[in-house]
């Protein structure tokens, strides 16, 4: 009763609360409509395609669709002994159809991913199948090559029956499902992807550390110098920041080559012999040096913007209270810069972990990262589902860091330049 009488009404008789809520909703819709075009654009052209990558990475319909009758017949097979005539006949029927469509090559590539040795026996089978007589396909197929009489190969075919598979993800970690259906690692000398993942982490980590060690003093100098000097020095940070990545990589290629200036300098001061110039490019060193210089501005700028807000009187207060300059720095100044350190390190780490161009140009074989492997599978082997799987594995790592970054720094606190 009392709440009704106390209600404040607007001039047209609607309760104020309702009217305010309506206005609020209207404002919300207005704000959302402004964001909507970009959001929609990004969802269609960017977010969905990343989802599409997820789908591609587990999609394994190709073989399922190439051998429909075989898999149907295999449903009753327990996988212990060789399958019976029914399966062989179904396989023959599927195979003849594939040969007609000239798709048996694709089948052999796909099956070879599961088990080595399919390529040659499928080629042999294609030639032999032209002369096959009707009936008793088991005998005829088995006589083409002894592997066709090996139950392992039939199990390998059976493993490709499901429409979806996680094997590309396992392959990205150098693992596979073996004959018994267990997940095992590949032989030690073939674990190329694990090496790449570890190397990517290692390079990203050390590049971040180097960037931090180099950026901290100069950000401090920039923040404490009088404006007229610091503006001039700031150009040294901003000019590389605005310069093309390829230009900067090119300059490192010139500097680091065997007859390059850095080597000339080392020879000049007698550090190395002229006929024994070290290889500084096309290996890890190249990746380290070039990536550190290229990513350095991304560390300096967040550090600088935090240090700029620290009042110099705090250090003076620390010293006046009896701290030596080092103690004052360590106990007062350094803790205040931690938000900047967090922002800079995460930014550099995120950028470094997905680096592609620079390692591809100066990294050689021992300095390339996981991104280069993804590009290789996209452009050379055309195994797009594997590229997608590795891309998503990398992405999930980056998203964890992104989430941390958002927690620590806040995504709307990113500052540029």
């Amino acid at each position, binding site marked *: 009763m009392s709440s009704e009488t106390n209600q404040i009404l607007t001039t047209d008789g609607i309760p104020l609360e309702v009217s305010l809520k309506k206005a609020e909703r209207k404002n919300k819709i207005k704000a959302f409509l402004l964001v909507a075009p970009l*959001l929609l654009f990004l969802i269609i052209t960017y977010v969905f395609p990343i989802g599409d990558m997820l789908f591609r990475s587990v999609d394994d319909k190709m073989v399922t669709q190439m051998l429909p009758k075989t898999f149907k017949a295999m449903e009753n097979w327990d996988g212990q002994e060789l399958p019976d005539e029914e399966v062989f006949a179904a396989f023959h029927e599927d195979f003849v159809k594939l040969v007609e469509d000239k798709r048996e090559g694709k089948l052999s590539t796909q099956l070879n991913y599961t088990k080595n040795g399919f390529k040659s026996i499928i080629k042999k089978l294609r030639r032999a199948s032209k002369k096959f007589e009707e009936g008793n396909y088991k005998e005829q197929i088995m006589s083409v090559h002894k592997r066709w009489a090996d139950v392992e190969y039939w199990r390998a075919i059976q493993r490709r029956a499901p429409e979806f598979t996680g094997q590309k993800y396992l392959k990205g970690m150098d693992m596979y499902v073996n004959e018994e259906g267990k997940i095992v690692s590949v032989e030690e000398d073939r674990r190329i992807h694990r090496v790449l993942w570890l190397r990517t982490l290692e390079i990203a980590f050390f590049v971040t550390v180097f960037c931090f060690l180099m950026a901290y003093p100069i950000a401090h100098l920039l923040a404490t110098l009088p404006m007229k000097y610091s503006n001039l020095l700031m150009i040294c940070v901003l000019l590389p920041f605005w310069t093309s990545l390829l230009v900067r990589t090119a300059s490192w*290629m010139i500097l680091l080559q065997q007859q390059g200036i850095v080597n000339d300098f080392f020879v000049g001061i007698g550090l190395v012999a002229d006929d024994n110039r070290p290889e500084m490019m096309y290996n890890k060193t190249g990746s380290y040096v070039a990536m550190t210089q290229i990513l350095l501005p991304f560390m300096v700028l967040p550090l600088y913007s935090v240090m700029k807000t620290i009042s110099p009187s705090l250090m003076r207060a620390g010293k006046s209270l009896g701290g030596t300059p080092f103690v004052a720095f360590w106990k007062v100044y350094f803790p205040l810069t931690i938000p900047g350190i967090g922002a800079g390190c995460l930014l550099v780490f995120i950028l470094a972990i997905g680096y592609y161009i620079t390692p591809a140009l100066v990294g050689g074989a021992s300095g390339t990262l996981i991104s280069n492997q*993804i590009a290789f599978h996209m452009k050379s082997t055309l195994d797009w589902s594997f590229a997608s799987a590795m891309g998503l594995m990398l992405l999930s790592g980056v998203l964890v860091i992104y989430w941390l970054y958002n927690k620590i720094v806040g995504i709307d606190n990113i500052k540029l330049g």
Partner: protein
Amino acid sequence: MALPKYTEPHYRIWHYIYLTICGAVFFFLIAPLFVIFPLSFNAEEFLSFSDGMKRLDPDAFSLRWYKDMIYGTKNPWGLAAKNSFIIAIFATIGSVILGTVAALGLSSRHMPYKGLIMAVLISPMIVPLIISGVAIFFFMAKAGLAATHTGIVLAHIILGTPFVVITVTATLSGFDHSVTRAAASLGSDPVNTFMKITLPLILPGVISGGLFAFVTSFDEVVVVLFLAGLENTTIPIQMWTGLREQLSPTILAVATCLIILSTLILVTAELLRRRSERLRGINR
């Protein structure tokens, strides 16, 4: 940074060590860029300093590679430069329009799910380029836009908008919303208010966001590598192929031009930043 007179000797020494370290880091940052300048005037076909150049012999320097860049018959730089500028300009326009409008919505205090939406809008900047490249390639291939200018422009809009969103939101954070209310109370409709009041005030932020978008597009190579056909080659693609295959001094001539361009952009961006800070009353 002059030290007070009472500074003890070992702090004095430490201070000079610190300054030396800073000097070395600045040198490390900026020096590599300056190697390109003299070498682009090399009269010979090597990417290292010839003896003549070390003696500053005028005959050792020439404009040969610049001529080759412009007039060279087999050189794709003309087409590449044309494509790069066309793509970058359209991508910038697209990014600026979409990004600015979105930033207006985002900085409204009524915006629902602000954090989540911001995270989606910024994601193209955070997600490694190679992944963006793969995803965008899948989309463009399906949409039939692979190997077209349109496809590349759209891809660069995706990559460029985060920068516009960030810079414009930052500018709007210091924006006094009472001026738009004043305009509205004087009978101006929202579009008119935006064009006459808001836009002129946030223009520095919009332009610097646009510069970021322009540079992003102009310098982008990973996504273009997936998308471009022979017709859509850009300067970064030509540099990439050049650096991988036939490393010729012509690339250094192009690189020099790019450094000059980036210097111009840097100066513009800095002037805008200072103007914007002055307008927002941040005096430092």
